[in-house]
């Protein structure tokens, strides 16, 4: 009989479910599992405090109030921005974390926890880009050369999942599910690989695919969640055209790291089927791209079936 510890909490605009399978011969004690889960949750909280664009007191919002000067930031914020900028470079700015203020102007301004409008008072400038952000690794500083707001939505949740996974690593068999961004390790409660469904982008009650995998992160970016209040834009915006990307309905990416999977799913979504698929192939990650007419494109080694 399986012995599964389920732990659920709300964080980062979503619900996080951690599942620890404990029926193995050398399974950790209940206390050990609880401790690990508690540390995993702490990572989510810490990363949210740093990276939440919707919270006026977050580190990322404070950073946006100090354009033009190098600001010493936490390792969390530094690494999240560092990675987001690298993805921006690799996609020629189609993915761009400096899009925060633009997202606000599209109506993405509500703090999911309070429902409060938390828009910053920064000017909207269509011209800001990732090139306006300078990092200094030695001093761990970030300099914003233009007044801009960083949106780390595609990176922070993945980073939190990766951190949580590090804490749970000794427990071997577990899954972390943060609102559909999933990381699985070891075996599922039935001692097999984890069965992961990919949501059908046009019907919430259906799965478009099911995979049996382990030791991998699976993240999906879709056009079906979080429409803004003031327009018909969904939450993934092509930073180069500033319109919601519409050539794809959803992109699922499999990678060792949830941060990588999440960011590449978002980037591929913005790029469209052809360039998106090429991006995934170039980085040796697997993925499934689904168009609005439900045509599916998969990388060569995507474990479908």
């Amino acid at each position, binding site marked *: 009989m399986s012995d599964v510890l389920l732990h659920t909490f709300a964080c980062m605009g979503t619900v996080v479910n951690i599942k620890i399978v404990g029926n193995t011969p050398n399974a950790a004690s209940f206390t050990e599992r609880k401790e690990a889960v508690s540390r995993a949750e702490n990572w989510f909280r810490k990363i949210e405090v740093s990276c939440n664009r919707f919270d006026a007191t977050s580190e990322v919002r404070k950073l946006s109030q100090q354009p033009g000067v190098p600001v010493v930031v936490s390792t969390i914020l530094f690494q999240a921005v560092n*990675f987001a900028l690298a993805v921006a470079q690799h996609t020629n700015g189609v993915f761009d974390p400096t899009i925060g203020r633009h997202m606000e102007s599209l109506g993405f301004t509500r703090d999911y926890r309070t429902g409060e409008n938390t828009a910053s008072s920064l000017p909207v400038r269509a011209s800001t880009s990732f090139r306006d952000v300078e990092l200094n690794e030695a001093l761990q500083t970030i300099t914003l050369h233009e007044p801009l707001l960083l949106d780390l939505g595609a990176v922070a949740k993945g980073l939190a999942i990766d951190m949580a996974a590090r804490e749970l690593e000794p427990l071997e068999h577990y899954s972390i599910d943060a609102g559909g961004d999933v990381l699985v390790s070891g075996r599922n409660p039935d001692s097999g690989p984890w069965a992961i469904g990919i949501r059908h982008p046009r019907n919430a009650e259906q799965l478009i695919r099911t995979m049996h995998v382990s030791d991998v992160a*699976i993240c*999906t970016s879709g056009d079906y969640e979080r429409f803004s209040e003031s327009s018909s834009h969904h939450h993934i915006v092509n930073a180069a055209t500033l319109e919601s990307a519409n050539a794809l309905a959803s992109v699922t990416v499999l990678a060792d790291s949830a941060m990588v999977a999440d960011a590449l799913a978002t980037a591929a979504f913005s790029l469209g089927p052809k360039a998106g698929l090429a991006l995934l192939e170039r980085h040796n990650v697997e993925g499934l791209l689904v168009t609005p007419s439900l045509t599916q494109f998969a990388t060569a080694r995507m474990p479908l079936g």
Partner: protein
Amino acid sequence: MTHKKRTTNNLVALGAAGVVAVYAAGYVRTAAAAQRFSDESNDRRPVPERDAPSPQGIVTAGQTSDARMAEKFGNSASGSAALIAKPTVVAATNAPSAVSVKSERRTKNDANVEADKSSTNDEAVKNAMASAASKAMADTSKTAAAAAAPVTTPATTAATATVIPPATTPPVAATEIPAKPEKAPLPPGVKWHDGRFVGYGQSRHGDIEATIEVWEGKISYVAISQCLTQYSCSFIEKLPQQVFDRQGPNVDNVSGATQSSNAFYYAIMQALQKAK
């Protein structure tokens, strides 16, 4: 998966390096908190078993369950005692059964009554444990040290009062067995025991309670027995039919899922877990 064996490219390597950097920088703080948590747990642990007076003869329902939990989860007396101190769940709402699917032979659809009925000692303990565990965790937020707090208060008294003998001690095992007859082994090909089982799933918009019934090894009834979400549950009303048709959720997780359907699946999974 083949990913790990393959050469990594820039972004993949950079991502991995970033994760390591954050973990390394942050570990010092979490490690300290974890250590504190661990120390406090040790402080709360009851005296070693061999010195403990045997509780047999005065075994109450709570103690038996406690011993069972210790057997199940290792020697974590304080933790399990605290969990049992929490009341059994079933929120005091009278939300009607929102959505249900059932086979013809079943007509009754009063989840709360049935839940109480099937809440034998065993079910009650498991429910309490599951809900208390998640509550205790959910209540914590800022630090691991804080996480220890909800466990502490009821535990210190409860744990000393109900000292747990090692699960292997024969006399205790003997008093324990009548209180909780082991489920009969399942015949091959049968996944679940017959009975009614309740599971809970949480979402940011509220909680979902699902009830399943298993009859002759098959799911004969699935219901969203309580839908405590802020919004109507209509958008997940087809899910019970799906579970019924497929005889269980056929996946562990759904990538890209909406939160409410996630909550429903977790509720079903938890219920089926109890049926095993």
